[in-house]
């Protein structure tokens, strides 16, 4: 959902970082995308390629690291990995879970030249 606008936000962050560091070109961009962030990876790759044309990050290599969703289970008091919101706790099968991670998307680092 909204991969094109998310890619725009990535491009802004990447451009700003590159300029601040006096770079002429961005060779690679590394994103961390949580599995609970509702981001379609293929759509993200396509959108990134489109929005970076004409920018310092044109033709940059896009690396995507997917991170697991994590949640705190109120029943068994464990932090567990979950694939989707609404999944049961893999340890005790309870649905009383509070998401603690894997629902965000971050620009981790960029390789500049």
């Amino acid at each position, binding site marked *: *959902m909204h991969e094109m606008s*998310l890619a725009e936000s990535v*491009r802004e962050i990447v451009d700003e970082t590159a300029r601040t560091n006096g770079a002429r070109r961005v060779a690679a961009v590394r994103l961390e995308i949580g599995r609970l962030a509702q981001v379609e990876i293929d759509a993200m790759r396509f959108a990134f390629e489109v929005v970076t044309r004409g920018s310092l990050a044109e033709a940059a290599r896009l690396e995507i690291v997917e991170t697991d969703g994590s949640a705190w289970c109120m029943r068994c008091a464990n932090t567990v990995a979950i694939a989707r919101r609404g999944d049961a706790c893999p340890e005790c099968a309870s649905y009383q879970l509070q998401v603690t991670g894997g629902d965000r*998307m*971050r*620009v981790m680092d960029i390789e500049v030249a």
Partner: protein
Amino acid sequence: MCVTCGCASGETRVEGVDPDHVHTHGDGTTHSHSHALDHTHDHGPDAWQRAAVAAGAAASEGSQARLVQVERDILAKNDALAQHNRDWLAERGIFTLNLVSSPGSGKTTLLVRTIEQLAGRLGVAVIEGDQQTSVDAERIRATGAPALQINTGRGCHLDAAMVQTALGRLAPSEESVLMIENVGNLVCPAGFDLGETHKVLVLSVTEGEDKPLKYPDMFHAASLMLLNKVDLLPHLTFDVERCLANARRVNPAIEVIPVSATSGQGMDDWLDWLERGAHAARQQRPDRVATQHRRLVELEAEVARLRSQ
């Protein structure tokens, strides 16, 4: 105008006017929005070849390729603006609700009924979000409450920047209740903080008890679910208990109030919830010295940041 939703840039209208040409806030501060989609396109094969040659040349020269740490969240810009809105509202003791639902859940009718019954008890101002028309804002104004309409064009959700502009124009009264009626959509608004105190989800009994499982992000983000149109229950096979169980499965902490804007059922419970929230907002209003100190710290940080550039 929309800082995160590129597909709506240039189309947002606040009270029929392109907000990029309206920059003044109620507190006198100004800022401008620029559209992000103004880069040039070069689609020809030459551009790719040039880029590939340049990349190859850089690699073969043993370029000074280096890694620069970023670690910035993509929605950071919207989140920062939302927090700015939240602080602005908290300083004024304004209890703010982001009303979300599918289209046709009865949000606006419920709002109209709520405002009518709060008359004399609490002041209410409304920010209306729809793709097109000012029909909803006009319905609200007919009750006597101030309302401001945002039309998103093709946009599917309100964002913090739109709300920031709206706050400057609407200038809600101190210690009042602000209702933000989001675009009818159970998917997208979940990811866009506006600066509200709570998200309130309106689910109509005509929508089916499986909705919480189908749209877990939105139900997870809501503090309260108003189960609306309960006057229709005798005509439906809607299983109320199963709906509540599903909602609590996705969000164990969600509160639920069954209501009917037409019959009046449950309205007292809903109004009590509002009164309690408005009271808490008044009680938690930071004192002026603390507020000014916080602003000073913010300005000092901004100056330091600008100086370092």
